[in-house]
């Protein structure tokens, strides 16, 4: 077992993750973008049931659900703000539950693994969940901690709905 980091650092990083996800749940997307570094890589692979690989996680050169840079995430946020992104107008109600946060310090950056369960409810009735884990790289900048890499591994091969939210 890896030793992890100090309770103080664990606390700081967990608070950062909670704050970050609260911005998503509160629909404060512009503020959320400020927590991402300019060289961000944001990747949501496709998951399948494959032989010779128990996890079935596809790579960045395969079909991906999301495979974004900072600019393209900004475009996604800009889209939400047009008022014409119908899948999110009215907004879905999301809840990002973060658990099992494990941190490793790597020469000035933090490799963070956490479990996520994102529950989404929408309009009158639709309610569904995304399950999986995240591998983040956090970097300390002058404006505080920021996310410089995020890989979101969803457990579901069949998603409950098209993805109109961020993880």
């Amino acid at each position: 077992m890896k030793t992890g980091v100090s309770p103080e650092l664990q606390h700081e990083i967990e608070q950062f993750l909670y704050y970050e996800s609260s911005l998503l749940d509160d629909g404060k997307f512009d503020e959320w973008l400020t927590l991402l570094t300019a060289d961000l890589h944001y990747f949501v692979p496709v998951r399948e049931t494959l032989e010779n690989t128990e996890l079935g996680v596809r790579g960045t050169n395969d079909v991906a659900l999301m495979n974004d840079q900072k600019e393209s995430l900004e475009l996604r946020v800009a889209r939400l703000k047009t008022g014409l992104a119908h899948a999110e107008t009215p907004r879905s109600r999301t809840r990002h539950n973060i658990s099992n946060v494990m941190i490793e310090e790597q020469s000035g950056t933090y490799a963070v693994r956490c479990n996520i369960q994102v529950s989404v409810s929408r309009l009158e009735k639709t309610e569904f969940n995304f399950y999986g884990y995240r591998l983040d790289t956090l970097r300390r900048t002058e404006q505080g901690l920021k996310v410089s890499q995020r890989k979101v591994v969803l457990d579901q091969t069949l998603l409950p709905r098209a993805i109109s939210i961020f993880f």
Partner: protein
Amino acid sequence: MNSQSRSIEDIIRADVTPALGLIGRKIFTNPEIYRAELDRVFTKNWLFLGHESQLESPGDFFTNYMGEDPVIVTRGKDNNIHGFLNSCLHRGMKVCRLDAGNARAFTCIYHGWTYDNAGNLASVPHEDRIYPNKLDRQKWSLVKIPKLQSYGGFIFGCWDEHCVSLEDYLGDLKFYLDIFIERALGGLQAVSGRQRYECDANWKIPADNFAGDDYHVPWTHGSYMKLGVVSDQYIDLPCKTVAFPYGHGIGDISPGGGVYEADLAIAEQMGPEVVEYIKASQARLQKKLSAVQAKIYAFGHGNIFPNLSLNDFSALWPVGLYWWHPKGPENMEVWQMILIDKGAPEAVNQMALAKFTHVQSAAGAFGQDDSENFEQVTQATRGVIAQQSSFNYQIGLGSVIDDELQRQLPGEVGPRISEHCQRNFYQYWKDCMLRGDQLP
């Protein structure tokens, strides 16, 4: 008074009247019509299974669905492509529970019957001592898809042995399919991985949308028009929609050119290698196909009846393929894959992958907003009162198409904004549902 007075055939005959541009709503939610569709539509027409480039080596396989029947498609040790029902002939177990892989044989986990990768029953545990009357292994091989043919690398299967050939089924549509098939300098290559998501909609809603609904783009995808990702001239571009026999339809066709020029402009910003590539693509089209096809340059979007939709926006985009897999009258699974040109520069293919995730993917803008429509249309269509009115597909009824253009372009050409492809889709659907076993 009888509680079930009308047969589904009566409903279809009376309510589905494409010539009037009116399609009754019951066909989108009625469970009995749905069950009949699985038979009369999905076992009688050619269904897309996958692309040959998914099966490079002997033993490669992938699984998929035809209607609600699970199937396996393989490259056998004979190097031929095979397709069969994914259900053991002994007592029905799924013989393969993977999405894709490579296998010499499929061994059923229930009792160990083993089928080779051409679907032939190869061994039965203790066969000799348990069948005094002998087991005819040939007869108990996996149910083969009786018709399995490819066009330009696209593998289709049909359960009806008496169906028309795939070439005839595609017919004039091939003129347009050839554009992206032939444009690829190195040939088309499937990118690994398929996306899948649930959508609570009847499968015909998205199929008819892709068959020729250019009209929805400025509204449904208004966010990207506002941001300039889609041109704000989109709806006024001199594009056409084209309908074909057997229910196929396409849109976004630019017989007057313009797509190539736009690619070139982007390519110039990307550097000489990409300029070179775009020019070579154009040259190849001119050499392999006709001047008209070279001018069209990209396919746009379309639907091959019943439930394969495609888009090919330009040589800088991937070819997008969508299955609307039926899972009940009001539910479907969207399965997606993409193809890229093996001969394209790395930068082009990276751009194509990126465009895909932003636009077409399950997390793409079009994917999201189209899903919202498909689901809410289905939702608002279920009620007793809703079902007393018909959907209106009257756009372009009575419109006249320039003779010259119609001469140049195979298929039945219609205006940019038109619902004739959808009318064509439902007319053929109606034929399937009413002719039953004489089809196609």
